[in-house]
């Protein structure tokens, strides 16, 4: 019974990644290598991030929201962006189009994130006899994270790879990328500063990810047009 629940939660957490890969043209162009490379970059980035956090951050005993600490955390969060930049620009990819490249990178990034952050708690927690909604919510969070990662990768590819984009859109692209990159800090603020419960936070994340996905899709389309 509990194994059943674990499987359910695992499907919710990791299923969308596989569905995304097989449903979109990514599978036809064999971009698995790119995704795996990105996942490795993610691991290295996570390690660097951990070292930074351990070096600069005080261990807070209280659950309170400390603005200074959170600012520091947010700036360390930009290590992620650096990692993504590396994955997008420095990795040698077999000649796949920019369109597919950012999707593969975002997918690999989100999958590595899910495995690293969610698999172990899921394995330990969801197999217990006690039933909680927590792991279902965590699975939904993973879905939102997937959308956010792909959006960020899309915005990143617009920023760093595309040269001839409309000048008016540049500030909007940077703004959006900034918002997406600070998303972890925003949710942390909602949870601890505002005292939101987990279901509310996850709902917000889902909504935010959908909005941002829509915006970045529009931006991407707008940048695509003049090149044709």
């Amino acid at each position, binding site marked *: 019974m509990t194994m059943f629940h674990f499987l359910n939660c695992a499907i919710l957490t990791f299923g*969308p990644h596989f569905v995304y890969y097989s*449903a979109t043209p990514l599978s036809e162009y064999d971009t698995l290598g790119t995704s795996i490379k990105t996942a490795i970059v993610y691991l290295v980035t996570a390690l660097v991030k951990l070292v930074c956090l351990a070096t600069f951050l005080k261990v807070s005993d209280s659950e309170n929201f400390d603005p200074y600490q959170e600012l520091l955390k947010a700036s360390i969060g930009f290590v992620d962006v650096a990692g993504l930049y590396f994955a997008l620009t420095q990795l040698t990819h077999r000649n796949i189009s920019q369109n597919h490249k950012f999707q593969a990178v975002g997918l690999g990034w989100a999958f590595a994130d899910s495995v690293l952050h969610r698999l172990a708690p899921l394995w330990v927690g969801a197999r217990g006899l006690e039933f909680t909604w927590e792991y279902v919510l965590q699975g939904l969070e993973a879905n939102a994270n997937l959308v956010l990662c792909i959006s960020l990768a899309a915005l990143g590819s617009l920023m760093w790879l595309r040269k001839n984009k409309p000048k008016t859109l540049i500030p909007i692209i940077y703004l959006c990328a900034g918002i997406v990159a600070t998303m972890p800090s925003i949710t942390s603020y909602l949870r601890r500063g505002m005292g939101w419960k987990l279901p509310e936070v996850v709902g917000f994340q889902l909504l935010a990810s959908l909005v941002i996905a829509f915006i970045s899709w529009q931006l991407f389309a707008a940048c695509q047009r003049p090149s044709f």
Partner: protein
Amino acid sequence: MLSSVIALCLVVLACVELGDAATAVDVYRLIQYDLAGAPFGSRVANLNHHAVSSLSASNADLSRTVVIIPIADLDVSSIEDYIGRKQPLGGLLFLLPRILNSGNRENKQDADQSEQEIKRDKLVLLERLLLHSNIPYPVYFAYEDEHIKAVLDDVKRNDAIGQPATATTGGYKLVISTSEARKVSSPSITNIQGWLPGLKLDGDSNQIPTIAIVASYDTFGAAPALSVGSDSNGSGVVALLEIARLFSILYSNPKTRGRYNLLFGLTSGGPYNYNGTQKWLRSLDQRLRESIDYAICLNSIGSLDNELWLHVSKPPENAYIKQIFKDFSDIAGELRVKVGLKHKKINISNPRVAWEHEQFSRLRVTAATLSGLSSPSEFLENFGSLSDSRQFVSETAILRGVKLVAESLARHIYGHEGKNIQIFAENSSLAVNPSYIASWLSLLSRTPRVAPFLPKTDPFIGALRKELAEHTAEVSVQHENLDGIFTFYDSTKATLNIYQVASVTFDLLLLLVLGSYLIVLFSFLVITTRGLDDLISLFRRPPSRKVKTT
């Protein structure tokens, strides 16, 4: 390399104990014992079943459910009926009222007395039933608290609706995982004896007489880990210690040392026909045993009724008995307590020993039991039952009992019979000490003392020995084996984990929802990135391929 590290972490995490229960409660198992080979008590320790709130829940499969019954709602006859019909059951969990918990002190003293009495009667009946039946499923006791009450309310609500347990309606699973109960190998009983020698005049070759004061200290009850026996026989033990303390003061000065030896005996094995007393007496030196003038056994003197009984086995016309009874009733009159005399002949051929003094009488030693009980209890009963807790024992009653015994002993020893002299008067240096009584009583009320589960080296036995050593000149400890017709089983205490669980139907439903979500997602992605035709062709292609290959 990293992936191997992650794999290692996962393996470690998988081995971590899953102890994240919503609630963990201390529970105490019903005793499990064999009496001359016949099994009694709860025969199983492990528990892993869903909870229901009453035995009459018709829609549940009772052989796979645990019934939670608070003592307040208990109907003993229905349980008796159920056990009598030998129907299968997953388990029983009785919730004891919190007032019985001797560990918590902030009880309201003004609790409705009559209501408490009803509960006590029920508990006594329940205990008698459980002790003497063979129950093939686990039976546990727990104290009520907020968590378990909340769980019970939820369970009751579900039972009322008649719905099976699901995650959203709050199904609960009770899990107790302990090792199966094992036999306690060679249960031992420990007797502690203290000796306070009297004054022997020079040139007096005759042995001076001895007076023995005896109390049995061990207990027996439905739940061994809860069997504290504040009244039976904690009160007797406390009284004995206080009497020893008082006489040690008198005997420390040669001027006030009496011409009697005092022998104090804390005996074990009381519930088992005073097995320990018998063995202790047999092991005593023959001359010492013959020098015993009389013995006073103290038993259950802590309840606040103005009536005490002197139980004897010799006829009341006997000169010694007359003397003892007169001593007691004189002082009782001064203390405004009634002391009655009860005579019960002993039957040597019957192994049943109802009072401790009967073991003395069997060896032709004059003895009497001072008790608050007017008639002997049944075998194994009234030795620290569940309801025998600190709340129902009065310090004043023990104080009075101590005074009664000590004063009558002193008058006998110093030859002041019939005179109205208070030796242990209040506010004198020989006054009975209420705080001493209170502190020992609270220690006894916290310590379960069922002999087979009380090893020889138990700190409690050490404490009794040390206390007696402080007040007497000579202390000896005697270890004996309990006579062989009893076999006891361990695992008297465990932790109950209460989990809120989801039903299989719920998990299936969740799987269905998730599956359709993934399918919708897949279709959506295919349509947006490749177009609707691609999606349709995805489903058409395989048959066309088959056609080609054939």
